[in-house]
């Protein structure tokens, strides 16, 4: 056996070692996973799918479409209500995970990717509000700029630059958020769902 493995071989072997198919797509789960609180993670992902789908339609037709087309306005409405559902489900999911102390058993990275996803979602939503090209976006832009300028990042991220906000909202942030969510879910699959808190200590 060659002691100098090819990169491809190394990546394949370490991937298969870390991600067994039975862990990634299990058809059983621990018996303690028996509460409706557990559906809110997948509900959040489902809302994210609706956001991307409706967002792609809006992207295809351009940012001004929804002002003049009733179908466009309808897709904007789906996008907006998907945002509301997304945050509702994500917050219930966050509360559930907090009260389960779901970071136990070396699951701190699952928690961290989840919290960063929460913050990234807020930033994504914010850039979305900026590109509405209506009064609300004008007001939000002129107010938010003061917060960004106060800490210096307004010099780099200009809330009044609709073009910048649009490209960030439509390309950069969905990739970042999508990547974070994939990482988060893979961590859940690899570590397994956190077991119940036992009496006499959480770790």
């Amino acid at each position: 056996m060659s002691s100098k493995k090819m990169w491809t071989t190394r990546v394949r072997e370490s991937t298969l070692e870390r991600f067994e198919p039975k862990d990634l797509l299990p058809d059983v789960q621990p018996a303690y996973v028996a509460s409706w609180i557990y559906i809110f993670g997948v509900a959040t992902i489902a809302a994210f799918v609706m956001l991307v789908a409706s967002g792609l339609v809006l992207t295809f037709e351009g940012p001004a479409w929804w002002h003049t087309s009733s179908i466009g306005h309808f897709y904007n409405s789906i996008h907006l209500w998907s945002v509301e559902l997304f945050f509702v489900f994500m917050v219930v999911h966050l509360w559930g995970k907090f009260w389960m102390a779901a970071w136990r058993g070396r699951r701190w990275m699952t928690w961290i990717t989840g919290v960063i996803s929460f913050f990234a979602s807020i930033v994504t939503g914010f850039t979305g509000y900026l590109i509405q090209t209506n009064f609300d976006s004008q007001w939000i832009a002129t107010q938010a700029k003061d917060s960004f300028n106060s800490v210096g990042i307004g010099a780099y991220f200009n809330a009044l630059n609709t073009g910048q906000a649009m490209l960030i909202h439509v390309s950069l942030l969905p990739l970042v958020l999508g990547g974070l969510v994939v990482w988060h879910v893979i961590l859940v699959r690899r570590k397994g769902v956190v077991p119940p808190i036992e009496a006499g200590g959480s770790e």
Partner: protein
Amino acid sequence: MSPQLSKHDPAKKWSGPTRKYDLIKEFVIAIVVVGLLAISLAALFSSPDEPALTLKSWAISDPADFIGTATGELAGTTVSAGYGAPYNTAAEGQVLGPLKLQKWAGVRIPINPADDFVIAPLAIDNDPAVVSAIAAWKAASVDQQGKWANAYADALGKSPKAITLPDPTGVFGPVPAIATGLYGLARTGALDGLLAAGDTPLPTNFTKPLLFLADSGTYFPDYAGARHLQGDQWGVMNETGSYPGQSWLWLYSFWYQIDPFKSSGNADVLVMATMTVLSLALLFMPFLPILRRVPEWIPIHRIIWRSWYRRKEE
């Protein structure tokens, strides 16, 4: 008690009882249910779309405020004129103790409000009165410009509804003609395009027209205030109309309602700093000694896992 139900190390792979579970089916059901929910809400409630304000609508709806703001730009008394980084060096900006984060970013988006919002757009105006007024303005010293503009601003302040004032002694210089010229330009709609198209004829960057609009004394802020969008109205959380807004920003909005934030000139940096600390606490919860034990002490988990705990006892 069966061995696999006794205390389990949460870091170890679960080897206890399991149940059959269809992950893909759950995902598909979630997509269908959430999808139908989103589509139904959209059909039932639609979404808000209050049309954008323009410099044209501003000049037509609140001419005195427009004239007053244009004069203020020339006098250097508007928010933009005295902002500091990233637009100019007119002020230090907000500080967080010894940290001058706003200033340190530097002037990366240079804006000279008097020139950019008022003088430069009037270059296309052929009216002889405007042409000579602009020439007189440019020929004067900065000191003289300030005297004229501040005198006119003060006089307008005493006559809040005035669009122009007589100047028998010439103390206002060319300022009334410049302000009136800009007002005329705005009413045609040309100013919106002129301010936006500074760098390129096909603009996507609305920094200049938005900064100018935001300098408004009454038109823009009153329009927002009527919709509860101001900072001290929990505006960060709110939406136009009766639509739900961004309720997840409740804590961010909260700080602006109370002192010391409410009446501080550094409100924004103080709120950002506070939210950063709290966000970091949430992020690093697994490592915070007391906070991470809260779920144990307030046993909501006993409701979540009640059937499991009951099973253990049996």
